[in-house]
């Protein structure tokens, strides 16, 4: 064999190793990713252009999207429409869960990271809600918060406080809380300032409790990577506990916090189980997102159109695309804002 053909053969071989082998290794993952992530995205983008019941009925272009935008702002009497309300509820939900969860988890993780007894037990205790089925834990909450027979109301009444409707209460918390201090609410203020409904606040509390363990474990994992000698050096340089947290711990754990922020923002936008279990069915005879749609987050609205109103699958697909763009936008924004605040070694 001539030298030239030998070289050609070798080059062919190298090509095989460089290009085809990695592809082969990646193939299973790529296949799954395609089947369950990429293909569905394109499929729902495609479906959103159709009137779609059981199957594709009629190609209607961007009509579904114009309906989405119509329903953002065209409720009765100038109030937001179904989609607009849902966006507001989603915003309340995300803002109410993500930062609160991360802040509480940061404090708890720091406490767990200092040398304390029963660390393993406590860590498990915080993690248990996360691995418990959301449905089971949610049903437990439904019973705790039951207005008639719930433990919480009996506790309130036993100390002389008024019972609450909790998950059945569509009233916004803003005016409610102010009236407890004898302050009235002006009707001229924009509606969103009144805040989420009592029911939504209950869902938010449940979600925070439910996802706290995950956040604690993630932050704890970040905290243990901090060199204790660095912290010692900082102490010897005169920092107190607060300065230690803000000047040393926080910056050093910032990549972990950022990761957590992104992951929990995405999962918060997508959370469906929490809302569905707490505020629909459960013997109250109401649909998903009740009372009065005050806990109707975007995923629940998509669900409603998909399963409760079977003719509007195409519309549900359009809403899914809206959620997709929304999450993408928020995450990109977070990347942009955090870029300079996050320290990577």
């Amino acid at each position, binding site marked *: 064999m001539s030298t030239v053909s030998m070289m050609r053969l070798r080059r062919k071989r190298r090509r095989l190793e460089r290009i085809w082998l990695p592809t082969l290794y990646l193939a299973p993952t790529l296949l799954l990713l395609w089947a369950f992530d990429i293909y569905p995205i394109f499929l729902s983008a495609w479906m959103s252009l159709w009137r779609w019941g059981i199957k594709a009925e009629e190609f209607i272009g961007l009509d579904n999207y114009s309906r989405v935008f119509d329903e953002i702002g065209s409720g009765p009497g100038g109030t937001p429409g179904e989609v607009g309300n849902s966006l507001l509820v989603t915003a309340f939900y995300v803002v109410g869960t993500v930062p609160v969860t991360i802040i509480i988890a940061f404090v708890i993780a720091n406490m767990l990271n200092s040398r304390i007894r029963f660390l393993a037990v406590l860590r498990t205790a915080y993690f248990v809600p996360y691995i418990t089925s959301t449905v089971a834990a949610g049903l437990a909450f439904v019973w705790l918060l039951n207005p008639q027979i719930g433990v919480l109301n009996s506790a309130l009444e036993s100390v002389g406080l008024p019972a609450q409707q909790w998950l059945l209460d569509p009233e916004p918390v803003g005016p409610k809380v102010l009236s407890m201090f004898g302050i009235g609410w002006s009707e001229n203020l924009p509606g969103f300032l009144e805040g989420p409904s009592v029911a939504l606040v209950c869902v938010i509390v449940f979600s925070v409790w439910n996802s706290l363990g995950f956040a604690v474990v993630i932050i704890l994992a970040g905290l243990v990577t901090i*060199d204790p*000698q*660095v912290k010692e*050096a900082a102490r*010897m340089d*005169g920092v107190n506990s607060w300065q230690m947290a803000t000047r040393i711990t926080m910056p050093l754990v910032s990549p972990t916090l950022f990761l957590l922020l992104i992951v929990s923002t995405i999962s918060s936008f997508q959370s469906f189980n929490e809302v569905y279990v707490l505020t629909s069915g459960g013997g109250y005879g109401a649909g998903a997102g009740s009372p009065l749609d005050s806990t109707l987050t975007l995923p629940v609205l998509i669900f409603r159109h998909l399963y409760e109103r079977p003719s509007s699958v195409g519309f549900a697909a359009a809403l899914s695309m809206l959620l997709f763009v929304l999450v993408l936008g928020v995450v990109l924004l977070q990347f942009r804002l955090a870029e300079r605040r996050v320290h990577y070694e």
Partner: protein
Amino acid sequence: MGWVTIEALSVSYGDTHVLDDVSLRIPRGSLVAVLGPSGCGKTTLLRAVAGLLPVASGTIRVGGRLVTGPGVQRAPEKRGMGWVPQDASLFPHLSVGENIGFGLPRTKQNDDLYCEPGEASGRVGGLLAGLTRRGRANRARPASGLAGTAAHASPLAAVPISPDRGRQTSRAARIIELATMVGLTELVDRAPSQLSGGQAQRVSLARALAPRPDLMLLDEPFAALDPLLRSALRTEVAALLRGQHNTSLLVTHDQEEALSLADFVAVMRGGKILQFGTPADVYERPVDPWVAGFVGDTVELDGQWKDGRVECALGSLAADWMGVPAVHVKPERERPLGGPMGERGAALTPADGTGVSVLLRPEWLTLGARGSAQPTTDAVVTAIAYAGHDALVSLALGDAEKTAVRARIAAPDLPRIGDRVTLGICQNALAYPLG
């Protein structure tokens, strides 16, 4: 009085006594090295002084201020001590300059190193400047030209030196001063990850020195460096600490480091201080054979005491009796440094004929009779370990057992293996009780 006084300090981890009744006095402005093998408790001693671990009993005073004592355990951050850990432990998220300035007091108005004279430091704009990319870019740019115009615009600039501004400039100036001192002026903007080991250790030193600590604590600061850099850096660091008139406590397991750097050396073993004294004291008059062996090479022979001399394989040598355990923890009470200890030794010398352990340093043995203060003896060279500047020469003596001794001989005068040489001894031998 010592500047730092440690008295009867005990530390235990569970049932293990790591420090057992340790007392130490460090004169103001001196560098004391605590020397000992790993696990002897020297790092524990340092951490106890730093306040990083609880003590079982004992007191620690710095400059007359009680920092550890019965019912007193001042927090580490309030002790005003400088800390140089073994691996530098710089703050990875801060620049070199900010690392150095970490312990310096910050003003509320603006804590940035690069605060330019024209910048309105106290106002919202100043605060926001750090949060925005443009603000940072502006700040990083030199202020030339900008300062003049901004001075008119900013109400703060009308008062040339407000107290805060004064403190501010002093903070930045102090950072520069220290960066210059450790020779890293051009690296203040670097990230710690971009530094070499030696540079990182210098930054660590500068960081510890910046708040002008009452006491510097150095935990094997050179152990992680390569040998060449190590010796260069430690000379430099010692000079720097002396130049600053700092009182320093250095922990090391390297006898060469302790002897070459320190004003006083405390030799530790098993949680106790065996000897405290000047490097020469510890090296030439070690309190027992273990200390002798730990701080340097030894030639050990069996011998018999006879009227101020020892009879051994090297002949009859003038010797000092070292049988009285002398734990000197207070250098002030000692006799003049380097002076003879004969008086006390003489009073308690053993009876003639008592078996003793005779100890010499290899460099006390000389080739040829010249300069020998002792009777000479013949020997045959059996091996030479060449070390460049000198060599460790193994010799077999002429006695029946052909006793082996080693001599450190300067390189130019080296014999060859098999040479028959005359051995002189230039110093009094040390005699210790047997066992």
